[in-house]
C-alpha cells in the first residue's frame, strides 16, 4: 500500500481551476480535502509506489494544475529491494523527470 498526502496548487484563473477540480473527480483512489483558496489537499492511495507515481505525474499535467507538493509519504511496502548496481539501462530517460518538475517547481 502506498499513501501520499499532496497539496495541489490550482490555477488563479477560475475556469481553469474548475476544470482541474472536475478532472480530479474522475480519478479513483484520490480523496479530496477542503479547498483553501487555490490550494487543494488530497490523499492518493495506491497498491504500490510505482502506480502512485503515475497518478502523481498525471495530476501534475492536468490543465489548471500549476504544481503539486508532496507533504506525506507512507512507503511501508515500497520496493527498495534493488541496488544501484546494474542500473545502466538507458530507457526512460526522457519520460519521467517531469514528474518531479511539478513537485518542486
Amino acid at each position, binding site marked *: *500500500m502506498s*499513501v*501520499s*498526502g*499532496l*497539496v495541489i*496548487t490550482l490555477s488563479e484563473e477560475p475556469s481553469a481551476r474548475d476544470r482541474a477540480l472536475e478532472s480530479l473527480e474522475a480519478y479513483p483512489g484520490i*480523496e479530496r*480535502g*477542503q*479547498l*483553501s*483558496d*487555490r*490550494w*487543494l*489537499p*488530497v*490523499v492518493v*492511495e495506491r497498491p504500490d*509506489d*510505482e502506480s502512485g*507515481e503515475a497518478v502523481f505525474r498525471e495530476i501534475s499535467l492536468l490543465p489548471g494544475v500549476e504544481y503539486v*507538493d*508532496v*507533504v*506525506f*509519504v*507512507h*512507503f*511501508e511496502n*515500497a*520496493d*527498495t*529491494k*534493488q*541496488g*544501484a*548496481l546494474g*542500473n*545502466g*539501462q*538507458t*530507457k*526512460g*530517460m*526522457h519520460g*519521467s*523527470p517531469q*514528474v*518531479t*518538475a511539478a*513537485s*518542486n*517547481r
Partner: protein
Amino acid sequence: MNRRDFIKFSAMAAATAMARRKSGAAEAGPGEASNGEGNSPEWHKAPCRFCGTGCHVRVGVQDGRVVAIQGDEKADVNNGLLCVKGYHVGMILYGKDRLTQPLLREGGELKPVSWDKAIDVIAKRIMEDPDAFGFYGSGQWTIPEGYVAQKLMKAGLSNNHIEPNARLCMASAVTGFVSTYGVDEPAGCYQDLDECDVLIMWGNNPAEMHPVLFSRVIDRRSRGEKVRLIDISTRRTRTTEFCQDYLEFRPQTDLAIANGIAHLLIQNGTFDREFVDRYCHFRQDTEPDSLFGKPMSFEEYRQAVAKYTPEYVEELSGVPAEKIRMLGELFGRRDLRITSLWCMGMNQHSRGTAINRLVHGIHLLSGHFGRPGDAPTSLTGQPSACGTAREVGTLAHALPGGRLVAKEDHRRQCEKLWNVPEGRISSKPGYHTVKLWEKFCTPTNQGGDIRTLFVQVTNPGQSLPNLHKHFRGKKGLEDKFLVVSEVYPSASTELADLVLPASLWVEKNGIFGNSERRTQQWYKMVEPPGDARDDCWMTIAIARRLYELGHSGMKDRDGQFIFAMKNDEGEEVPIWQWPHYYDINVDKRLYEEYRPFTWMKHKNVAPYDELVKARGLRWPVVETDDGGWRETRFRFSGFDDPFVEEGKRIQFYHSVTKDDRALIWFNPYEPAAEEPDKEFRYWLCTGRVLEHWHTGTMTMRVPPLRRSMPHAYIEMHPDDAAEEGFSNGEVIQLMTRRGQIEAPVWIEGRGRVPRGSLFVPFFDEHRLVNLVTLGAVCPISKEPDYKKCAAKVGKVGSSTPAMAKGPEVRP
C-alpha cells in the same frame, strides 16, 4: 479507526494544514500525524539526510523500520514541505545491497572478517607509520563524528592529514568569508529569501538543488508579492524558467561581471558611501596570492575596476552591456533589498576565492548588507558542511571553532581544552584533499607519503576530480591501504582493502549544522542492519586499540584515554566496545566537549538539551536573563546579533584589520585553467540533478528516484548535436585530456546549454564524469574547478579513447 484509515487520516491532516498555510489562513490547524495510536507509527524528528538546506522531517517508525516520512510543519526551514528526495529519504535505509559486515581484501577478494580483526588491522597500519595515515570524511559527518575524527588525528596522532570532502564544495566559500569578514559562515539566514525584493542567483540552480528554499520565494509570488529573480548562469536550468532575467555568461567571466557592477556603482555615484566609510576597507591580492592580501585605497580600487565598463564586460562575458547596467542600477538602489545566492557554481571555480570575495564586495560597496533581505549568502550542498566540516576543525589547516593549526595560541587553547600535553598538536597543516589523494596514489618511493587512508561518509572514488590521477592511481600500489566505511557498495569500495559497514542517518544519534548556521539534533530510531556500526564508534574503537598498543598520543596529560567517558555514577563506560556504546549518549558528551571551542569566534552553539527540544537553533545561541536560549538570525547586525556592541548598526567584530571593518576586494578577471581550443572545442560543466544526491549511492537505491532519473547524460545544444550528427538519446563518447566516458546525449532536455557547451551530472557510478574532469584548484582555497574544462565528443568507436598528451593545466 483501522490502520489504513489512520494513515490516510494522517496524510490528509498534513496536506490540509499545508494547503491552509499556503493560502495564508491564520490558523493552519494540526497537520502532524499523532503518535502511536493503535497500530500506527511512532513519530520522531530528524533533519533530512541530504543537502545543506536542513529541512526537518517527521520519521514514522513501526516494528523497528522507518515506514513513513512527513515534512515537519514545526520546522522554520521547510514549514512542512519537502523536496522529492526528502519525502523518499526513509527508503535510503532499505536498499537490498546494504553492507552488513566488515570485509577485508585477501587474494584480491573482499572476505568477511570480524570487527575485532578490522579494527586491529587499521590500528596496526597506523602504528607502523602514524605520519603516513590520512583520514578523509565529509560534510555528511555528524558534528560528533567529525569532532572525534579530528581529535584522533590532531590531539592523538599529532597528524593533520585529515580532510572533509567539503574541500571539494565549500572551501572557496570559507576563504571568501574569512578574507572578507575575518570569520567563516554566512551572516544572513533563510529569512532573507522571505524579505528580498531581488534575488540574484550566481551560477546557482536552487529550483533543483535547494528546491524547498526556492519554493519560499515562489510561494511569495503565488501570494501576490513582487520578487524579481535574476539568473546569472552558463546554462539554462529549471531555475531560469522562474526568472525575469537570464544573463548567460561565458564560463569564468563572472569575475568580470562582478567587477562591472562595482565599476558602475562608483561611476554612477550610487555606492553607499556612508556604509563603506564606516564599515569597510579595500584589499587586493599579493603576488603570489594570499588569504589576506594587501591594503589598497579607495582611489586604487576605483581605478582597478574602472576598466570593467559594461562594454568591456560584454566583450569578455557575452552578457549584453545593458544587462550589466541593469545590475549596476539595481545594486545602486537603496529602496530595494537584494539577496545573492550561490553554491557550487562560484565555489568550484579555479578563482573561487576571488569570485566569492567580489560578490561580498558588491554587497558591501552598495550597502546591501545586514538588513533582512539584503545578504550575500552561500548555500551548502551537504547536510553538515557548515556544522561539521567547517566548524569542528576537520580541514587539514584547521582546529575546532575557527582556529588554525599554524597559530601557536590556537594550538595551546585546544591542547588545554583537550587536556593533552603542550606541543601535542602539530603546527604543520596537513595535505588538502587533492594533494592528500595525489600522495596516496603516488608510489611511496616517489614521494607518496600517505600509505593508509580511512574514508568515512563519502565516496571519493566517484567525486574526486580527474579520478585516474587522484583515485584509480592507487591500483597496483602494494603498500597502500584504503579503508572505506560505507553503507552501500560504491566506486570507493571497489578499490578498498577494508570495507566497514556503517550505520546510516536515523540508525544512529546525530547532529548536523545547515547552511544558515542552524544546529539540528536527532536520536537513533532504528537498528542498523546486520553488523553495521556507527562511524563515531569506529573512530573511538581505533583510538582505543592504539591506546592498547601503546600509542602515547591516545593518553591525555593525566594518562587517561583521550575519549574516556563516564556515566552519571562516575564510572568509566567502555564505549569502544560496541555493546556498551549506547550505554550513555556519546553524541551528547562529545558535543558538550566541543561547545566551548565555539566561543572564541562567537559561534556559540546551543546546549545539547536545547537542541533536543528544537527544530534546530542558529548560532550564535546565547543564554538570556530568564535562563532561556536565544538564537541569532542576522550576524553582525546590531538589531539581532548579541555580540554587536550596543548602539552599533553593524559591527564586523572579527575583522581582519581588527577595527570592526570588512574588506572589499579587487580581483581581476583571469581565464580558466583550461579553455576550449581547436581540438577540444567544448566547455564541459558537471553538476547535480534534482532526484539524486551527490554520488547517488543513497538515492539510486530509492526506486522512484532511480526511475525518474536512471542514468547520467550529456546535455548538448541541438545545433551542436546536428553538426556532430548525433540524435537524441544516442550514446556518444565524451573525451578530455584526462580520458573518456560514454553516455547518451540529451538534446532540449531539462537544462539547456549554449552552443559550445556540455553538461554532465556526476551521480551515475556507471558513467563517471570525474574520470575526465580537470582538478585544477583555486590557489587559495585549494578547491577544484568541476565546472570548466575543455572536451570533445564523437561517435562511439570513432576516436582513440586515450589519455592525451599535452599540458593538463595552464601553467
